């Protein structure tokens, strides 16, 4: 996979992070980090390179159907159309004819004039293309303000340039043969362009153009990259350059009346000019607004990136080296709540989860070796006669079945990411961890849902560490209760959840009650997979962050936060709609603002009920199981 593939990863989760052009998966899910940083730098690097090198093959601007020049990384086909056209347009009015020819010939060397039949039309079409697809049309149209004429507007955002009056282009014919030839032989044309890259004129134009256009380029490419859900790595120096001035009238052009028609009366011409100017002013205003909006978004992202960058530094330089003394400090806890930067996430999780079980890398290797022995030794056929696992409550056949089941389930784990499926980069790793665990804890074995937990860990740390974290995580009381499907204990957890549900969201609680919507219906999935299946992965990782800090209580707090977040929608639903909604949450919590709101909802949940903590409530219920939720009782 190269950087571009990564950028265009269709799953749209902004999950694969490319750094310096190479794919970097392990610290996956954080769009705050991913999308913005990278795209900006991607575009900037690209632009810089193309400016310096003139015709760099790897980084070129390309005009697409939409007319928006975009940056294509590693694109073998080079077209530097908009860039090369602007000089032509800009110099149009006041430069001597010879320079114009040069411009067409040199600057326009790589412009795409694809085999136009008419010589004249060809020259014109260069201009048309530019005015439709770039900002430079403004220069063209405003350059004509000493002339009066008709203007043609086809839509609110772009206009057609149609030169009825060719007199302005009387100097072009000389240039066009070259253009046509280039159009016919794009390859040759490109080579020539490369050969001419030393031309001072080209360099001059390129520089000028780059300087003028760079913020727009950044934004455009940023937009493109957002669509592709891609990412690369930061380069902060260039991102500061955020100023914007509207460059065009969105391609509104005031034209002469064709020479073969009688000229307009002065009054009418004046009126048209006035109308034209009004439209231009409006368009400028609108563009300015949009640009400001984009700039705000960009600034927000830059700010986020910087805060993440700073946080990463604080974590790795200050907190991690002094883990034991600092982990409980208020400052660290606050920083922790804000989400752990992906680059240190795995290490923080490992430290926070701990290794009570004292599992070593060697033990993992032993368990894995045993699992592999089993896979190769026993074919998946049924040999249920042998039975030596009575004490564990699982028959030999069941254990074999669970090895088969792991295979089946791995392909059903985050299928949209396409990295755990057969042939995917993490298929074997996931298989190994789950297999090793069935050998490490045959009494628990493989239970559906585990594959999601292992997968999230694999995405954040190396295999052996992921196994250690996995085994220790599952060994926590709440996880053990669920993964061993200890029914009465699960009921106790649900009952405790309901206590806090009623306390925090009494109205919604009553609504759920009246619809007989019991917590098991949605909590089972949430708790088993620690939200990794139900929330977008980056949001889920933030939940994991705080779960590592606060323990099981946070899982239930998150559940209440989700219910509060969607409270307004839920109150208007009946049983089946709520059940469907909660077991398949909308995928919309993807933007930063939304996840921020969700976390404020979670933060607003009060986890003390009549002066009792979560643990106290849970313990009280365990002593008195009669108060358990009536759900799941027979």
């Amino acid at each position, binding site marked *: 996979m190269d950087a571009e593939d990564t950028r265009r990863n269709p799953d749209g989760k902004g999950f694969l992070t490319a750094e310096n052009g190479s794919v970097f998966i392990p610290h996956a899910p954080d769009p705050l980090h991913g999308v913005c940083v990278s795209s900006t730098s991607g575009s900037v690097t690209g632009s810089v390179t193309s400016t310096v090198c003139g015709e760099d093959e790897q980084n070129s601007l390309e005009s697409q159907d939409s007319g928006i020049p975009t940056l294509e990384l590693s694109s073998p086909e080079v077209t530097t159309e908009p860039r090369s056209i602007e000089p032509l347009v800009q110099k149009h009015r006041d430069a001597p004819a010879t320079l114009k020819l040069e411009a067409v010939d040199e600057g326009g060397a790589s412009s795409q004039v694809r085999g136009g039949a008419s010589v004249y039309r060809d020259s014109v079409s260069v201009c048309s293309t530019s005015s439709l697809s770039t900002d430079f049309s403004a220069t063209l149209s405003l350059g004509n303000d000493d002339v009066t004429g008709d203007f043609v507007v086809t839509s609110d955002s772009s206009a057609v340039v149609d030169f009825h009056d060719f007199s302005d282009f009387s100097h072009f014919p000389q240039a066009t043969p070259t253009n046509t030839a280039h159009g016919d032989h794009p390859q040759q044309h490109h080579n020539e362009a490369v050969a001419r890259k030393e031309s001072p004129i080209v360099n001059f134009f390129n520089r000028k153009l780059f300087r003028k256009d760079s913020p727009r380029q950044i934004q455009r490419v940023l937009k493109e990259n957002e669509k592709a859900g891609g990412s690369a790595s930061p380069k902060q120096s260039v991102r500061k350059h955020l100023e914007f001035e509207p460059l065009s009238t969105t391609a509104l052009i005031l034209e002469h009346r064709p020479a073969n028609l009688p000229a307009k009366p002065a009054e009418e011409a004046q009126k048209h000019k006035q109308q034209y100017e009004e439209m231009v002013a409006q368009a400028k205003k609108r563009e300015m607004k949009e640009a400001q909006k984009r700039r705000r978004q960009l600034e927000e992202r830059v700010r986020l990136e910087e805060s993440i960058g700073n946080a990463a530094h604080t974590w790795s330089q200050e907190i991690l080296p002094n883990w034991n003394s600092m982990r409980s400090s208020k400052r660290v806890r606050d920083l922790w709540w804000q989400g752990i930067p992906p680059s240190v996430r795995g290490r923080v999780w490992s430290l926070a989860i701990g290794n009570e079980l004292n599992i070593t890398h060697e033990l993992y290797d032993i368990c894995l070796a045993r699992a592999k022995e089993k896979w190769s030794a026993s074919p998946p056929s049924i040999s249920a006669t042998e039975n030596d696992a009575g004490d564990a409550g699982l028959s030999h056949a*069941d254990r074999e079945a669970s090895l088969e*089941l792991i295979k*089946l389930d791995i392909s059903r784990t985050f299928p949209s990411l396409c990295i755990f499926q057969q042939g995917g980069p993490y298929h074997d790793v996931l298989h190994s961890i789950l297999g090793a665990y069935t050998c490490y804890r045959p009494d628990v074995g493989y239970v559906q849902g585990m594959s999601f937990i292992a997968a999230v860990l694999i995405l954040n740390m190396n295999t052996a560490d992921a196994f250690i974290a996995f085994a220790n995580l599952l060994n926590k009381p709440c996880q053990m209760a669920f993964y061993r499907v200890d029914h009465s204990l699960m009921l106790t957890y649900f009952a405790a959840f309901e206590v806090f549900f009623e306390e925090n969201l009494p109205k919604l609680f009553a609504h759920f009650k009246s619809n007989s919507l019991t917590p098991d219906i949605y909590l089972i999935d949430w708790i088993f997979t620690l939200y990794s*299946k139900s929330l977008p992965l980056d949001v889920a990782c933030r939940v994991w962050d705080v779960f590592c800090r606060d323990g099981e209580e946070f899982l239930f707090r998150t559940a209440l936060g989700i219910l509060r977040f969607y409270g307004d929608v839920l109150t208007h639903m009946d049983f089946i709609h709520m059940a*469907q909604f909660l077991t398949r949450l909308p995928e919309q919590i993807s933007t930063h603002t939304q996840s921020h709101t969700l976390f404020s909802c979670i933060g607003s949940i009060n986890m003390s009920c009549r002066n009792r903590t979560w643990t106290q409530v849970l313990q009280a219920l365990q002593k008195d199981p009669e108060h358990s939720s009536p759900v799941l*009782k027979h």
Partner: protein
Amino acid sequence: MAYAYLFKYIIIGDTGVGKSCLLLQFTDKRFQPVHDLTIGVEFGARMITIDGKQIKLQIWDTAGQESFRSITRSYYRGAAGALLVYDITRRDTFNHLTTWLEDARQHSNSNMVIMLIGNKSDLESRREVKKEEGEAFAREHGLIFMETSAKTASNVEEAFINTAKEIYEKIQEGVFDINNEANGIKIGPQHAATNSTLSGGQGGQQAGGGCC
């Protein structure tokens, strides 16, 4: 929500036999080759028409792994119909039918209609369970039987609708006490209040939206 009756269904069977895919095909008319794992329970709903009456199906799609049986058991309560699914390309899923059936009979209403489904009928070349075997099992245990393919949608519609027809007939025969919701049948608002609430029922339908 302008339905005459609401039937609760439960889909059961080993993991990976295609329960969720059957549901998706029935409710959304599409097939997802790699479906997410179901953990706990998921839901679907769709309106069908039987004998000119609107019937809303509320479908509970359960997790198939053995470990989850104790959870699944609590979801039988109040189900009027069950789809018991096996995979015709995996004999073990057929062999486990007996235990599934025991579970279902033990934890559900005795009148619950059970439809036995041999899924993945499109994978003829990998077939391990003959159609006759499925038919024999169904006959022996008093179930309705069908082979389906969630992938090609073959018989999917029929499986859900035939089950509803059977339930509907039982209601007509008076076997089901429709006033007892433990039977998995709810009378719709329209039906309950006879002719006076036609407009109210339509308003409700608007609010219900989407799938039903």
